[in-house]
């Protein structure tokens, strides 16, 4: 009984953990501008994150090695270091966006300007990272993040033209006013939001911290293969509810308040309150995950003790990094930069950074020295290579598309 409960808990937290500020904002923006015509990208991103997370989870469970161990072991210190710097910058950018997202969510209930809330949010995040137990962080915030199911209920209450939404699924249904370059840009952004690299760092490092073994592979797969796709369903629900309310009105989503508006219209105050709680939990949870991920990657590269299971005094370097990134993030947000803007940039750069960690994981997942009998099977390798191509294309296209469309405006 306890075991089933653990599996269920894992799946539920994976659903809540999948959605972060990047998914919230990008899906609402895309829904408002393109209806459901980009939903196929979410599907592609979800399959991608499943392939990617399953491989890294398997490596973590069988060999006890987390992502940045592999990066350095396979790519060598030099390329590994460049990789580390690139991935850390992207994760830091995401971290800044998540902290900004928490402040925005709090602004919606307090009407205090988000810049004033940033210092408090940063201190709270740092305290949680320093003091709280790893599993409780993940479980509490993951479960609270489930409140975002409100979007699916709101979509149903809004009573959309279901036939129209379904017919809009094809890329050919792109609204005529939007150019193909813009369509491609938002496609890449949505892909980056669904597949954010930190999710994999965090997932594999968490596996090592919780001392997974080959016996836990079943539970790990259930979390990944059920939890992430359901998280993807939430993403599509966000996009579809934005499409229902905003597409006919010609509203472009630029604030977190707008993201929640369809829920207000569909469900009223209580639904809205639940979803805003979901905003808070999802962004706060993701802030903890991204913050920890920066510490994990640096500690794994240099091999010093890391993690929440080691006492802070022994993992001094690790906790120092957490403090430094939190201070940097708060500093950046205090300049008054718009957190939504940071989010938009962060999802694009997530797409750029994907191959850096994906490729070493794919190679090691085939190495019997690490995995013994648990090396990739045919399906995993087929999907692995297909996704290596997709990720490379998305990564190379991301920055040119960003320049050509001036961040999707054109």
């Amino acid at each position, binding site marked *: 009984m306890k075991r089933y409960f653990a599996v269920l808990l894992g799946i539920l937290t994976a659903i809540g953990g999948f959605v972060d500020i990047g998914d919230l904002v990008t899906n609402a923006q895309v829904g408002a501008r393109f209806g459901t015509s980009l939903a196929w990208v979410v599907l592609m991103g979800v399959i991608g994150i499943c392939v990617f997370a399953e491989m890294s989870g398997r490596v973590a469970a069988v060999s006890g090695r987390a992502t940045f161990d592999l990066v350095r072991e396979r790519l060598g210190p030099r390329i590994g270091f460049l990789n580390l710097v690139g991935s850390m910058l992207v994760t830091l950018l995401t971290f800044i966006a998540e902290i900004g997202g928490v402040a925005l969510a709090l602004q919606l209930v307090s*009407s205090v300007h988000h810049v004033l809330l940033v210092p408090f949010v940063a201190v709270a995040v740092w305290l949680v990272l320093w003091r709280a137990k790893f599993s409780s962080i993940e479980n509490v915030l993951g479960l609270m993040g489930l409140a975002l199911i409100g979007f699916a209920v709101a979509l149903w209450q809004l009573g959309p033209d279901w036939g129209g939404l379904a017919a809009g699924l094809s890329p050919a249904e792109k609204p005529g006013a939007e150019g193909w370059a813009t369509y491609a840009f938002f496609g890449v952004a949505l892909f980056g939001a669904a597949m954010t690299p930190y999710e994999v760092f965090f997932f594999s490092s968490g596996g090592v911290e919780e001392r997974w073994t080959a016996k836990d592979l079943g539970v790990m797969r259930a979390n990944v293969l059920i939890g992430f796709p359901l998280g993807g369903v939430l993403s599509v629900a966000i996009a579809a509810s934005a499409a229902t309310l905003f597409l006919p009105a*010609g509203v472009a989503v*630029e604030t977190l308040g707008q993201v929640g508006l369809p829920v*207000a219209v569909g469900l009223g105050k209580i639904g809205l*309150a639940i979803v805003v709680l979901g905003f808070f939990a999802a962004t706060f949870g993701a802030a903890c995950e991204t913050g920890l991920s920066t510490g994990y990657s640096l500690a794994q590269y240099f091999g010093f003790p890391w993690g929440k299971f080691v006492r802070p005094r022994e993992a001094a370097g690790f906790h120092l990094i957490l403090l430094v990134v939190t201070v940097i993030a708060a500093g950046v947000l205090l300049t008054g930069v718009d957190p939504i803007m940071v989010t938009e940039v962060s999802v694009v750069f997530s797409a750029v950074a994907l191959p850096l960690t994906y490729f070493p994981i794919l190679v090691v997942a085939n190495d019997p020295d690490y995995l013994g009998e648990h090396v990739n099977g045919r399906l995993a390798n087929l999907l692995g290579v297909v996704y290596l191509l997709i990720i490379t294309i998305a990564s190379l296209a991301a920055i040119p598309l960003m*320049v050509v469309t001036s961040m999707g405006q054109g």
Partner: protein
Amino acid sequence: MKCSQRPAVVAVRLVASLLVLLTGCGVVSEPDATAWDQHAVQALTDAASQVATARLALEAAGDGRTWPTYTTVLVAEAEEAAGTAEEDLARLQVPPERADAAPEVLDLLGRAVDLVAEARAHAVAGTYDDRALLDALDRLSDDLRQAAP
């Protein structure tokens, strides 16, 4: 040894020169009718979006579907964004070909800013059911969308 430049060095130089080119393009901006049109369409679309947002927010608040701070934050942000859209266009030098059209567009944008500001005042005061304001927002939103083809 001279001809064997490493690919990485070549790549860095390429990227650097590309960046110089791109920033160069950004700095040199003659008053050009097509560029101005693009900016005008962008500003009108943005303003239309903000007006529609304010309309949706007030309506939801009137039905008791949001709480006061949420409405205030939402409409205040719409006001700020509408203001930015207007300022960004007003700052551009109007090309001679658009000397007639420009005042009209800027006037429309100015009306949008004023109306969203009024909506914000209503949101703060908690008077959500001003039918005339809602209708005005509706009409202006349509006008803005028609002006931006």
